[in-house]
């Protein structure tokens, strides 16, 4: 004999069952803080699904911490007083690299692009934070030109890392795709990593870029921004339209990012964080999480030994299937981000 429970009661039970016992009260208020928006200009051909997408995560070389040189700025546009200015709040500090290091960075940048795109056929390359070659806090035009040309030649997306920029006092990242502007699409870090002596200015309007490419919707943000609730919640809010989050990082505290990567991957799909090479610190080179499970592909040293690459192969259809399965059945993150995958019942 069949179950005689009315169908409406089965549905009500099914809907009420996964409601979180607690809902983060901040989850209703963050909506206006950070925007997530498509990067324009990608052709339909680039957006078309590829069965397999290879992502190369490049950990760029760094200097020993004791050798880093910082330059100080003030963000005050008018330094007249009284009334007194809060000079400490206006203080900025950015890292500056000399010609020798800039050349080393460019050589590694070029080597990594060649290895990833020409040798290994990567579709996407993501560099670590502060991995975009710069000289005296100005991004190198040669690096932009190279990234632009390589992305065009190999039909690839290049998230080229970031650099400190003295012109804006921002930590600015660049991404390139076939048809992009020669200078790339620009986006900025929104949080200063003061524990590593970074004191940057930030844009008044937070914006996370979203790239629709190869059948995947890929968002990117820089390092500590993922630890900022409003920013990461703004991405999760749009989880219906985001499959992958790529995060260039530069942090000794990289292992602490694991929990953030895990929970965010449960809400989104694939989260991959790539760290700079920090030889003095026991920080890892990557945190890669797929729907709450950690992936541990091996990293490889480039021939010069200065940088490392980790490859992640994504079966696009399988990722989407697994997302549908998980997000329509489980409710492991709605308590944190608010109801995104399950209905609210009144």
């Amino acid at each position, binding site marked *: 004999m*069949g179950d*005689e429970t*009315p*169908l*409406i*009661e*089965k*549905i*009500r*039970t*099914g*809907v009420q*069952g996964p409601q979180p016992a607690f809902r983060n009260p901040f989850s209703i208020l963050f*909506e*206006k803080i950070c*925007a*997530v*928006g*498509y990067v*324009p200009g990608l052709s339909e051909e680039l957006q078309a699904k590829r069965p397999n997408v290879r992502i190369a995560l490049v950990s760029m070389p760094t200097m020993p911490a004791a050798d880093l040189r910082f330059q100080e700025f003030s963000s005050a546009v008018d330094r007249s007083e009284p009334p007194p200015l809060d000079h400490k709040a206006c203080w900025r500090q950015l890292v500056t690299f000399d010609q020798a290091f800039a050349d080393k960075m460019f050589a590694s940048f070029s080597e990594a692009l060649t290895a990833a795109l020409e040798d290994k056929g990567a579709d996407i390359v993501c560099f670590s934070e502060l991995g975009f070659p710069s000289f005296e806090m100005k991004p190198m035009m040669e690096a932009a030109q190279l990234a632009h040309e390589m992305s065009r030649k190999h039909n690839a997306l290049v998230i080229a890392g970031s650099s400190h920029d003295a012109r804006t006092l921002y930590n600015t990242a660049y991404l390139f795709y076939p048809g992009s502007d020669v200078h790339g699409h620009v986006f900025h870090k929104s949080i200063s990593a003061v524990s590593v002596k970074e004191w940057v200015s930030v844009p008044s309007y937070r914006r996370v870029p*979203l790239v629709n490419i190869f059948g995947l919707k890929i968002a990117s943000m820089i390092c500590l921004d993922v630890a900022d609730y409003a920013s990461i919640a703004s991405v999760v*809010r*749009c*989880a*219906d*339209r*985001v499959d992958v989050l790529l995060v260039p990082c530069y942090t000794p505290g990289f292992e602490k990012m694991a929990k953030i990567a895990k929970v965010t991957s449960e809400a989104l799909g694939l989260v991959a964080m790539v760290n700079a090479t920090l030889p003095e610190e026991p920080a890892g080179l990557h945190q890669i999480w797929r729907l709450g499970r950690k992936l541990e592909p091996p990293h490889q040293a480039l021939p010069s030994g200065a940088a490392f690459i980790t490859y992640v192969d994504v079966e696009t259809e399988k990722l989407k*299937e*697994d997302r*549908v*399965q998980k997000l*329509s*059945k489980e409710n492991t993150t709605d308590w944190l981000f*608010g*109801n*995104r*995958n*399950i*209905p*609210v*019942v*009144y």
Partner: protein
Amino acid sequence: MTYAPWHAQSEPPRVIRLDGPEELRVSGVVPVVRWARLIKYSPILDENDTKRAYSAMQEAWPDWQKTYRASLTEHTGVPEESLHFIEPDIRWKRDGDTPMLDLPRVQARDVPEVLELRNCCALCIEEFSSKIWTRVGRPAIGTDDLAADQLRHVVQNFRAMATSCGEWFYREYRNLTKDVFAGFDVEEVGAFEITTVGLRVEGTFDHDAFDSWLFRYDDEGRERPNLENEPLCRFLQDAAGLDFHPRELTSLEPQAFWMSMPFAIELPNGELAARKVLYLARPRGNDAVQVVGIGIDDSREGDLAREVALKVSRFLASRV
């Protein structure tokens, strides 16, 4: 003393509103009706069983498609020559972990009431029921928005088409796969309808404006459906075919309930935004449920209704 739930109160409670409901200029409506027969196989199907069902239907298709086309004409009123098959064949695919048999999507554009229809079978390989779906809507691209005053008439038509075509397709599916499932018990669990309507609006709004049109907040900041918004209530009546005010729903039908489903849309400027669709769920007899939703659609493509209908369908389907 029995506590009376908020929705059973005859007078609306005093509330604090963040904003009053704004006058939304609804430039058009986008309705999508999904209807499904629910059946449970015993023993539980495995993937091979679903592939055998696919083979059986695929083998029958060359001859059966003539009958299929004629039946679509019978159930939609659209002449055969106006029915265009967008895909040629039946396909097997996965939606999450559920094998699906998709029949070709069919469009009718050169007729007074354009439409798009697809039949499909979601064959569950877990303990939940399989669903034999029929979806009726308007083609996503290349059609003008439907005027708001046409909503009740069009949804009634779509509902009738989805139900009658769905019942026919269900019987055909059972017949075509009877040998495949000869060793299985099949329990008919019931039917559900999921109708979603997107209200197309012009202009730039912020999230709060939309929220306050669909929802209100009580003294403790808890969200409730804004059933004091008469335009919203009229749309709900039209979409669900109610002959009473939605405020009376849960007192007249105590098993009914309200819910909302969030979804991210792409705005015309390329930014993503979170929107919510307000749904009512009500019984239609012991073994049928109607789920009807209204959402405000300022997306670039006008795809809120279609996408949220799919999300709600997946969610509910994974629970019954």
